[in-house]
């Protein structure tokens, strides 16, 4: 996200990344609350996010900027209310972890790295959209998560912070792109 907000694409990516962290943490993708699918350009997309962005913008909680959407003052107040809701608590945890990972990794890296996520890489260039984190998709990311967990365990860091785990994974995805894997 830009320093002054996030683009719509970043919002989708960021939400998808949060969902991936929840799966890495042992939750089911169905518990996230909404589904993602991959666009032909290899980007994650959630329809409900689009609607939410629209509604929030219409309500003035999100303000369009030159490059990105930003929270208005009222938007921040609503955010504060929603953070107190139990319904949001679980999702907030992974959103915070994703935010924390993004803070450890250069922002362009986050987008580029996510594009190397096995499911998204598989569908890049495909003519139609494809569901993400269904059973087949899960089988693609599971090995990544196993390797990641084992690596932390070997380092005696089995309880490593999710943000750190997420950041390491993003760096690994970036490295794999660089090495042409």
């Amino acid at each position: 996200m830009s320093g002054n907000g996030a683009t719509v694409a970043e919002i989708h990516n960021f939400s998808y990344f949060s969902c991936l962290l929840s799966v890495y943490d042992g939750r089911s993708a169905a518990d996230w609350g909404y589904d993602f699918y991959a666009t032909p350009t290899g980007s994650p997309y959630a329809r409900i996010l689009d609607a939410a962005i629209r509604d929030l913008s219409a309500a003035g909680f999100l303000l369009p900027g030159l490059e990105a959407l930003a929270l208005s003052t009222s938007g921040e107040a609503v955010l504060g209310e929603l953070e107190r809701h139990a319904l949001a608590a679980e999702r907030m945890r992974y959103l915070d972890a994703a935010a924390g990972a993004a803070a450890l990794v250069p922002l362009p890296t986050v987008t580029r790295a996510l594009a190397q996520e096995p499911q998204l890489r598989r569908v890049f260039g495909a003519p139609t959209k494809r569901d993400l984190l269904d059973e087949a998709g899960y089988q693609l990311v599971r090995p990544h998560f196993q390797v990641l967990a084992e690596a932390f365990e070997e380092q005696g860091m089995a309880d490593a912070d999710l943000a750190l785990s997420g950041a390491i994974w993003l760096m690994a995805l970036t490295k794999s792109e660089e090495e042409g894997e």
Partner: protein
Amino acid sequence: MAKARQGFDLPRPERVRLDAFSLFEREPTIEVDFTQAPVFCLVGANGLGKSTFLAAIAYAITGAVGQPDRKFRNASDYYKQTRAYAASYFRGRIKAEDEQAAQITLEMTVGDHFYRLTRGMFEPDGLRALEIFDSADNPLVEDGEEMDDEERHGLYKRHLLKDTGLEEFSQLVFLQLFILSFDERRALLFWTSELMEEALRIAFGLDSERAREIAKLAARVEALESNARNDQWEATRTRKHLASLLSAGEEILAEADDTVAEQERLQEQRDEALEDLEAAARAVSDAQLQLAERTSALRALRSDYNLVWSERLGARGHPGSHPVVARSLEDRHCMICGTEGDRVVKAIEGRLEKDACPLCDSEIKVKDGAVGEDPADRLQRLDQEIVATQTEISSDESMIERVERDHSDRRDHLAAIDKDLAEFELKNEAAIASKGDSAGGLKAVEARFKTQIAEAQKKRDRHRKERDAVRRKLKPLQDELVNSYAAAENDFVPAFTELARKFLGLELTIEIERKTDKVGLVLSVEGQNRRTEDALSESQRFFVDIALRMALIQQMSANGAPGCLCVDTPEGSLDIAYESKAGEMFAQFVDRGFELLMTANINTSKLLQRLASRRGKRGIALERMTEWTHLSDVQIAEEEAFEEAWREILASQAEGSRARTKGSKKKK
């Protein structure tokens, strides 16, 4: 009323010739003449064939051989049953290669007629040759007449019956085998009621029709009595069986009680298990219903939440929150015209405070999302309710998992009890059924048994009733027999007692007695009735019975036609004390004009010596059969003793002859 009996002309053997009779190895063809004296005695040792010789004579006359252990019912039945026995009797005594050739030729007189007949030893129903002459030597039946052996035999029987005066051939067979013979079977008339009654019927004047009727009715009475006894036995047996069953049934019922109790226990268990299963099913249903309700409530809450959120978003749809206006206020920069500064904020807020659109100054109608409650607070509340409901749903899901597991366990438990119950009932089906009131129950079995008992008793009573009816028909015939006997009693009884007293040396008598369905003679010795065989010694029994035969022969023989008694080795049963007495008895019989054809062992028997002495050379013809066949080693070793015994007998005979020349007796 009985016909007056004139007596019978009983057969008197005169000569016999045996051909190819391989039992007599040294003399398979042998001729014996019985006419030299009224007593003929074939003298030999044990096992030489004396009994067979006498049996062959009876066979020649009748075509029958007395069968040991054959139960006697009446003459007709006995003749039918024993006809096949003759072949097997001789088969053991004549070699197979001689069977065809073996034959007996008998010459005998019957009344005034002379018979010469030839019978194959294995042809009881045929005669190979037959000649019959009258007293003037005129042939009544000539040899060579065109007929087969069976036809010849039929002709023979017709003539014989006519000449004897008997009406049925079976009567002749009976007389020859049981009255005119005392053979190795040792059949005792006194102690065989059927034989006695048959003998009395023939001897004491009932004509054959009545005799046949008595025999038939007596047989019918016996059969009915036997049936009644069988019915009674059946009833008793069934009663005992029932008692045993009831006794065992008490145990079975006790076991059945336990079995049924166990069955009931299992059924109770099943009922309980079924109730538990139904309760578990209701618990599952209730839990599922609760989950459905809570899930529905959750959906409603979410819907409310989304609605309130929408209202929250809608409530903030005021022009003041439009992104352009909001941005303009944020940045203090008009997004439309680009003007910057506080005047932008002031202008926009001024119109908003007046509820006017910042762009076109139109009046703004304010939408309020909720009445009475702040949407934020409502959302907060709904959020809490949603979380609480989710927690409850999670609890409900755990509950469902638990109750479904419980339901499954109870279903398995019920299935197991059903299986145990089914197996138990299958294994104990009989015991369970016996306890019940079904057709297989013990009560029903008892009822069936009682019905069987009643039916058997009914049959018994029916048989007894019929028996009594037959007895009523039999009685007058038996009365005739008794009356007929009574008419002859004065001659018959002394004829017997004199002979028997010769032997026993004791006072004895006989009386006619009617026992239920039979008429018989009771022997009384020294005033004591001797109804059972063991009331006398063996030799006493035998010789008393021989005396009876002698008396019966005397009773039956027509005047001028004395009968011939065949006796087989009686002295073998004698105590030494009685040997000479027996000889006296025999001698007295012959003195009365009757004939005796007997066999005897060659030993120092006093009977033979006494008889030989009494009769002398003309009164007794002795034939030594030790030459007929080969002696055993034992017999050879004792040959000197045999010779001495023979000399003693001959000496007795000679002595008798000398005694008789002093006072001769008229030969009958």
